[in-house]
């Protein structure tokens, strides 16, 4: 039993880097299209909703609506970037392209592969979230120094959502199942977590559900900083995100082991 567990875990602290570098090399070939694809969505939300709705809403929590929204979009872009990398690209490498199979023939373990994929997805999330934060700062919706403070939170958000999505692809028989995760988990989370309007607007039950969402924890860390305020329960939010990053990682590694090493 112990050795079975060992095969699902990373063999050491650096093996995953080879997997990350493989993905990085593949990404470099399509970097422009990939960045455009990742950033278009949050930018459209930011300027579409921000300028349009902003006129109707006026100020929110003491800031302009677009500044309020910018913080939400930083977290959201990290969420979608790592989610989509994992449910489409990683799933393809795991099931259809034989990439994982080839790697499992080397000295890497399944745990090394999952950690490498996770870190790569988090890297893409970091890139997306950071770009939105820089755009927000450049347009004067946030202070430049605040961007620096939110960088680790963006990375952690990327890890948390990549890890959750890893759980989904470990269980999903085919691509068709991802639509459930998208429409039943990711999209509702956008509206339940205070990304586009304050959680306080929701009925009490939904507010309680929202408190458990990784996106809400991420936004509660990012927004106060970008709006130049002090956040509440910082340790709690960081702890929650860490839990979302770590627990699904171990569970998914175990599930992949059952799926691939029969």
């Amino acid at each position, binding site marked *: 039993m112990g*050795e*079975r567990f060992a*095969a699902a875990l990373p*063999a050491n602290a650096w*093996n995953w*880097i*080879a*997997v990350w*570098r*493989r993905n990085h*090399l*593949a990404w470099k*070939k399509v970097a422009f299209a990939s960045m455009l694809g990742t950033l278009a969505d949050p930018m459209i939300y930011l300027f579409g909703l921000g300028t349009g709705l902003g006129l109707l809403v006026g100020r929110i929590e003491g800031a302009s609506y677009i500044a309020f929204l910018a913080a939400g979009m930083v977290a959201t872009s990290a969420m979608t970037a790592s989610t989509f990398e994992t449910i489409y690209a990683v799933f393809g490498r795991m099931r259809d*392209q*034989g*990439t994982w*199979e*080839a*790697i*499992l*023939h*080397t*000295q*890497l*373990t399944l745990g090394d592969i999952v950690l490498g994929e996770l870190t790569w997805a988090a890297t893409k999330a970091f890139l997306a979230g950071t770009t939105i934060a820089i755009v927000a700062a450049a347009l004067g919706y946030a202070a430049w120094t605040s961007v620096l403070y939110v960088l680790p939170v963006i990375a952690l958000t990327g890890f948390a959502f990549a890890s959750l999505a890893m759980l989904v692809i470990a269980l999903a028989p085919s691509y068709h199942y991802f639509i459930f995760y998208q429409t039943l988990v990711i999209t509702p989370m956008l509206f339940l977590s205070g990304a586009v309007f304050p959680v306080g607007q929701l009925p009490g039950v939904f507010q309680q559900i929202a408190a458990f969402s990784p996106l809400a924890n991420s936004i509660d860390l990012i927004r106060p900083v970008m709006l130049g305020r002090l956040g509440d329960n910082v340790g709690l939010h960081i702890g929650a995100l860490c839990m979302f990053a770590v627990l699904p990682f171990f569970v998914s590694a175990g599930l992949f082991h059952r799926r*691939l*090493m*029969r």
Partner: protein
Amino acid sequence: MSNVAIDLTGVTKLFGNKLVVDGLSFTVASGECFGLLGPNGAGKSTIARMLLGMTRPDAGDITVLGLPVPARSRLARKGIGVVPQFDNLDLEFTVRENLLVFGRYFGMSTREINAVIPRLLEFARLESKADSRVGLLSGGMKRRLTLARALINDPQLLVMDEPTTGLDPHARHLIWERLRFLLASGKTIILTTHFMEEAERLCDRLCVLERGRKIAEGSPHALIDEYIGCNVIEIFGGNPQELISLIRPYVQRIEVSGETLFCYAPDPEDVRIQLRGRAGLRILERPPSLEDVFLRLTGREMEK
């Protein structure tokens, strides 16, 4: 232990309640080419996966390069090169990038990998394709690249699952030639195949499998001598029952497979005399092969 590359003892594997590998034992010596020969579904790929620690046996012991598998399979894989049944190269990468990326999985530095790439490209006869995208290569070239990739960690042992399935005859001969080169340089090879010709040409010894069980083991020539030992006459185009009664007294054994009779006769001329003057028969006399051994052992031709 150093002259034993692989040792299997009483290995059994079940998928659900289906027995895929059944009490299998064999030993492969260092420097040897050992074949696992059998039809699809005989358990060949499952055995290959077990050697790599990717499937756990339900019973029995496996030792690869002196290490117990799957317990220490990660360490064992450092000394193994794998050619999988289906190419799993990175199609969006170039030939060179595929080797680079794969070398990193073995913990090699870019400098170390770049030092061995020219030799690997030369081995695979892909020097002129180094910077071509793999998606644009022919099937034979992809297979040779997969073979070169399997050598990046300078393995002692190569595990090949149907290395030439799906290749045209020319590409297949080129792979065989490359494998003989590797054997000459001292590598150990275990390969699965359902090509009798491949097994006969390459393997020092082989194990014939049917439904997960070993039904014969030995060198190709020893197996042919032991189970056949005489020339084979194939007769096609008549009524099998009628022909059998006609030639029965002159042959050791007759196997019927579809519409073809396989006659094992110490003196083929006696059989020819009996068949003389019969129109519409096609008669072919040839030396015996592993195909005949398989037919003898299982009563049927190998399904491909």
